[in-house]
């Protein structure tokens, strides 16, 4: 939630940002940091008393060596800008965040976004080889570099990923890029009654692993195409041409064995459909929805997804589920567009979903009741060290105060 009253600043250079943060830190002005505001349903909302610092002007590609497969990019650059540049060299960076036209590199990393292709290409933090961060006191710290293997000192770049702007503002990220797969093909298959369990097991067992394999229940408005009695599965294959043929055959027969008759190939629109699904992860229903991400284990995925869905339905709310077969994530959205009493239910729903998995966390839903929810899930065992880390980096609690776990 972005308070309308908040004062905003959009520094045009790193130097300007340093000066601004140093002043705020000195004068006791609290700062809320934002990129493209595409993940503003994550974390606790700003209180409205902070200075809202936007990174959008700190954008652009700093260095790109296609032959090195490395790129350095400013934090405010949108994922789309970066992707377009890399695409010209037939390379890509699978950060897989929603709304790439607005999402910034810095924001995506700070939020610790985890996309569905990470099992194959690595987590965003594992693609990051260097970084520049402006700390709360306005000093600049660099880490890593422009090489793909580097063990000189602590891996500070990885450490900053997911810190939600509470340790500093990421102004530059250096990544290793990947060569684009030779060919991609997407499939959307409606699941008839009684096929889900077998279909998900078959997908998990595929020898040629898909880049993405999702079970989707609901989200009919956001993701086009037919759904069956037990929802549908989306599969994205990315391979060399030679392997894609075999992967396609294997997938068709695997789904066939599970009793899934129709498999709709969406070759030409593979990319668009994948983007639509990523957008669905954080899509909201006015201010009447809330979406959780539940990290579980692949072998518990289906039971966890069903349990979470049934919890939502028990509250007479509409449930949308995206279950990530390869990574073991469940995205569950609770919504009700025709009722005003969602706030009353949300706190009880929050409790119930945390019974399913204590680490369930909110990723979307700009709802007024959000401050009362456990938006980050249960505190981690290392919470005391995390508090100490926050104090070490931001002793005056200048950056994003109160928006992260347990009041950090």
């Amino acid at each position, binding site marked *: 939630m972005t308070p309308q009253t908040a004062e905003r600043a959009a520094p045009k250079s790193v130097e300007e940002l340093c000066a601004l943060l140093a002043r705020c830190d000195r004068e006791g002005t609290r700062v809320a940091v934002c990129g493209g505001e595409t993940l503003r349903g994550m974390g606790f909302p700003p209180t409205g008393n902070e200075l809202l610092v936007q990174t959008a002007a700190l954008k652009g590609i700093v260095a790109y060596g296609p032959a090195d497969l490395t790129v350095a990019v400013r934090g405010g650059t949108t994922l789309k800008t970066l992707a377009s540049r890399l695409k010209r060299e037939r390379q890509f960076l699978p950060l897989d965040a929603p709304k790439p036209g607005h999402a910034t590199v810095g924001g995506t990393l700070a939020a610790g976004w985890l996309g569905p292709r990470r099992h194959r290409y690595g987590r965003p*933090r594992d693609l990051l080889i260097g970084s520049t961060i402006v700390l709360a006191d306005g000093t600049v710290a660099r880490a890593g570099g422009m090489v793909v*293997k580097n063990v000189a000192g602590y891996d500070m770049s990885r450490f900053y990923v997911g810190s939600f702007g509470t340790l500093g503002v990421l102004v530059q990220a250096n990544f290793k890029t990947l060569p684009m797969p030779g060919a991609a093909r997407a499939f959307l298959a409606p699941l008839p009654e009684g096929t889900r369990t077998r279909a998900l097991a078959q997908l998990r067992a595929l020898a040629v692993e898909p880049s993405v394999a999702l079970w989707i229940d609901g989200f009919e408005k956001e993701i086009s195409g037919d759904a069956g009695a037990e929802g549908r599965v989306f599969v994205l294959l990315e391979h060399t041409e030679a392997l894609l043929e075999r992967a396609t055959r294997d997938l068709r027969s695997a789904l066939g064995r599970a009793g899934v008759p129709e498999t709709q190939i969406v070759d030409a629109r593979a990319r668009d459909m994948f983007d639509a699904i990523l957008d669905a992860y954080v899509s909201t229903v006015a201010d009447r929805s809330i979406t959780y991400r539940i990290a579980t284990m692949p072998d518990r995925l289906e039971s966890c997804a069903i349990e979470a869905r049934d919890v939502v339905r028990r509250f007479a709310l509409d449930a949308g589920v995206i279950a990530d077969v390869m990574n073991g994530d469940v995205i569950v959205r609770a919504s009700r567009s025709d009722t005003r009493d969602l706030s009353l239910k949300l706190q009880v729903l929050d409790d119930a979903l945390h019974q399913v998995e204590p680490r369930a966390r909110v990723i979307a839903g700009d709802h007024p009741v959000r401050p009362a929810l456990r938006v980050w899930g249960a505190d981690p065992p*290392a919470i005391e060290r995390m508090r100490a880390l926050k104090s070490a980096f931001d002793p005056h609690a200048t950056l994003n105060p109160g928006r992260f776990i347990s009041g950090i």
Partner: protein
Amino acid sequence: MSAGVEDRLRGALGAENVKTAPEDLSVYSFDAYSEGKLPTAVVIPCDTRQVSAIVKIAREFEEPIIARGAGTGLCGGAVSVEGGGIIVSFARMHRLLELDAANRRAHVQPGLVNLQLSTHVAGAKLFYAPDPASQRSSTIGGNIATNAGGPHCLSYGTTVNHVLGLEIVDERGDVFTTDVDDAGYDVTAALVGSEGTLGIVTSAWVRLLRLPEATRVWLAAFSDIESASETVSAIIGAGILPTALEMMDSVIVSAVEQAFHAGYPTDAAAVLLIENAGFEDEMDGCEAAMQTIATQHGALSWRSARTQAERDALLAGRKGAVGAIGRIAPNYYTQDVTVPRSALPKALRAVEAAARENDLVVGNVFHAGDGNLHPLLVYDKRDRRQVGAVLATGDAILRAAIDLGGTISGEHGIGYEKRDAMTRVYGTEDLAAMARVRDVFDPQRTRNPEKIFPSGTRCIELSVPA
């Protein structure tokens, strides 16, 4: 005072698991790079509870703690620099605690040998991807401390990509756990590669991968090392990322041939060893593309290992390359730097020039696909001139790597050896950010002191066990 420590440690672990005799301690005063000084004691705990007890005792007696795996490190990371301190050996904590094949992960103790983990899980058709050359003896705990790499890191990433969570004994002796899926700061990422300066890993959850369906190994020979390194850059630049892309020069090739009869062409100036793991369907296409590039860059020959035995021989030669160098000279020093991949030819020229200037023989065996160089400087440590030349050459190579936009360690770590070089790649604020993390986990600087962070003077002797 020190008798008190020993008694307390013996009480906690049993006398047989506390070593204090100088002849026992001296075994633990080396790694594969250097000789440190004698610690106060070496302790061999059997579980987390004992590690915790050790830390509490050490704290009471103000003894630093140095965690140690197999001692195969190459940067003086697991030895006592100033003398004293308690070295914790994980020789008795070497078990695979749990294999969760369904979720492709394993819970292991830090003393488990890297290769044994893959052997243990092979029955489930899984393997552990990071494969440092020392994998027959180095431990998962040591690998975590240094964020170890290996040939397969080109496609699978280094150790940090494969660690899902840790159990840590902190500086007070308390135990806490981390999990990459926990909310909050990525403490796992900070701990992996921290060389034992932030806490002691007492167990780890690691990611396992499916064993590949097909593996192929190719060998390309070149008349000069530049053509070979340009081939590497061109393969990567063409968007081909094989599982491993390794290079050896003629010095290494002849040493390996003498030692292993791996089947490397001894008349070539450089040999590229390429491994690709995946599916049979894509192998021919992959080979054709790489062979074309190699031919365009003047490859003298291109060979495909046809049988499992041929593949194993080629790969075993690479794994044993560093050891084989012992046939050339009594001692060697391995440098470890990384440069941007397109800078490989320039970096190799700089290595050659530095060695020539100091009148040393250098062999190159390295992870070319990652731009990670390992020049091996061969020498005789009884010759003071040669020792000085090795230090000067090693330093010139560091300088060259930095000038080319590279870094001072790709996979071996900083340890004691390179702590003073840290200021050449990082500024004060950059190091201060690392120190902020250290302050939280080790405010007294008693976890593996004298490592990573610069300061002080070089006082341990460069040497190599025979």
